[in-house]
């Protein structure tokens, strides 16, 4: 996983709530067996519409998605995260994320930032009035910064679990961390009751 410390980029305002993972990447894309090449599937159905925000020339190269509440609901497909990353997004801001999507994003180094809906509205207003406006997502300071509509700059702090933040800042992969505690796993396994199910075919 790549490290995430701080990122600055232009934004795409996505004024929609309940953006489910079927919209982020439709099911027929899930047949791929790689982690790359999902960029064309991102919001595929909506992108057929020329006026869809992602299609607008001024949004090309934007790297921060500012979305409505309940972003990433539905299926557990990690392909949704890969699609956002393959397309070029580094961070997604919303007032609420679905749990599985959030977990998946943080495991892949796509920073999902929870901010109050009022702040999301301000970011929408800012980037809609000025598409060149940049948003900074600073994981070290746990802060999102942007210019203000009325000239007063916006700075909003966000919460993120210390452990998750540490892993992201250092680009650490969970499996190697867990395997450092292999002895704990072996000790637990030794005490499991014999009635626990096993999948090996029953004779």
């Amino acid at each position, binding site marked *: 996983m790549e490290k995430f410390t701080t990122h600055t980029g232009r934004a795409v305002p996505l004024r929609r709530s309940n953006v489910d993972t079927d919209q982020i990447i439709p099911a027929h894309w899930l047949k791929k067996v790689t982690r790359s090449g999902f960029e064309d599937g991102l919001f595929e159905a909506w992108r057929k519409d020329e006026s869809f925000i992602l299609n607008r020339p001024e949004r090309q190269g934007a790297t921060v998605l500012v979305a409505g509440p309940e972003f990433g609901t539905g299926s*557990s497909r990690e392909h949704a995260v890969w699609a956002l990353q393959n397309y070029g997004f580094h961070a997604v801001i919303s007032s609420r994320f679905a749990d599985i999507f959030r977990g998946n994003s943080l495991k892949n180094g796509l920073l999902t930032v929870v901010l109050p809906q009022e702040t999301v509205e301000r970011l929408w207003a800012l980037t809609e009035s000025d598409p060149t406006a940049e948003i900074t997502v600073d994981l070290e300071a746990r802060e999102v910064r942007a210019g203000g509509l009325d000239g007063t700059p916006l700075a909003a702090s966000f919460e993120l679990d210390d452990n998750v933040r540490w892993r992201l800042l250092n680009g650490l992969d*969970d499996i190697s961390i867990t395997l450092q505690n292999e002895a704990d796993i072996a000790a637990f396994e030794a005490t499991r009751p014999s009635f626990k*199910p096993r999948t090996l075919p029953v004779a």
Partner: protein
Amino acid sequence: MGRTLAEKVWDDHVVRRAEGEPDLLFIDLHLLHEVTSPQAFDGLRLAGRPVRRTDLTIATEDHNTPTLDIDKPIADPVSRVQLETLRRNAAEFGVRIHSLGDVEQGVVHVVGPQLGLTQPGTTVVCGDSHTSTHGAFGALAFGIGTSQVEHVLATQTLPLAPFRTMAITVEGELPEGVTAKDLILAVIARIGTGGGQGYVLEYRGSAIRGLSMEARMTICNMSIEAGARAGMIAPDETTFAYLEGRPHAPKGEDWDAAVAYWKTLGTDEDAVFDHDIFIDANELTPFVTWGTNPGQGAPLGANVPDPASFADLQERQAAENALTYMGLEAGTPLREVKVDAVFVGSCTNGRIEDLRAAAAILEGRRIADGVRMLVVPGSVRVALQAVEEGLDKVFTAAGAEWRHAGCSMCLGMNPDQLAPGERCASTSNRNFEGRQGKGGRTHLVSPQVAAATAVLGRLAAPSDLTPDALSSIQHSVEA
């Protein structure tokens, strides 16, 4: 202070607990399917890691599998590659697999319980959000992403953030014709698609205790549609009776030890939930969705809502978008909404009781002209049982198509899809835009409503059928 069911199961699986770190939990059962596993196996291969516990891992093919001509090579080359990839990975890493054509093949969440692998007090994961289904047994079961699939394959554990607990207490008795599906749709409409976020839901109360295991699975299955981490129901005699004698259920002394343990799992009297919801079962009616998320639902007797009636701006916009997509006018009685297709199946309602319920309504009747109805059993075992009971004949005599087991039109990854603009009453769990095929419109319903809808060609409950038909339903239910 006492503990809840979820807390007990959690505590019993903590491998490692350290300040400032998430708990590391042991995973008792890891279910795999073809869609969310290829990149995980790839990761193992790159790192030179084996699957730690092949004896706690099992794979089945479901999302891509065709429901017709299953003895022929799969037509879609991309689907074929994905299934072949799973088979190759299973062989290389020594994982048990049930491929298309195998008697134990089927939707992963139907297969685990019917084999007796899903047991009370276990932790169950799968790279699929509807893993919540297994919570019906008092298991802590949740969907995970592909990175986590790789983590479980490599370590048989997962570092997990703590959860909050919510009790959904349903007292009373479900009225005639009202099912577990109606109950869970009503719960989601009440708490919203984000209402369960961060919570493990525990369904309790007399109405829940009165449900069969299959109905309980329907409820827990859709916990994810309320945004919950998991849904659970305390194990009881119904659970034990369902499990006893299944291929992987404990036997002999192990059975006694297991039941003794399972009986300790229920939430303690003095345990406190972080949140409580109460529902009166007696007041529930058949429920259908009108929108494009599972929270956008209403009683079948209601009208399509007016977006202006939503106070919340986000909800109002969502309702406007949904009505446009669904091609519905505010104020139209839901009962007047005509459908082109009916789908009975999926891990929500593709089990034998669901097929029986639909067949009981279709017995001696024909589906409406111009309506296409697909009946897709959740697993090969379910299909065999249905054939033994003659249900397949009932479906085909009524004009429905009887298909092979799999996910099918629940998500349209195989050829079973809606055409753009087609409207479908579906017993599945998601009415998202395009879920059942590009441009397709989905109304989530119970198997009973699905069958009645097929007969009348419009959204309908069994009670809308003529008295004649009703008495035949009564008859076949008793038989």
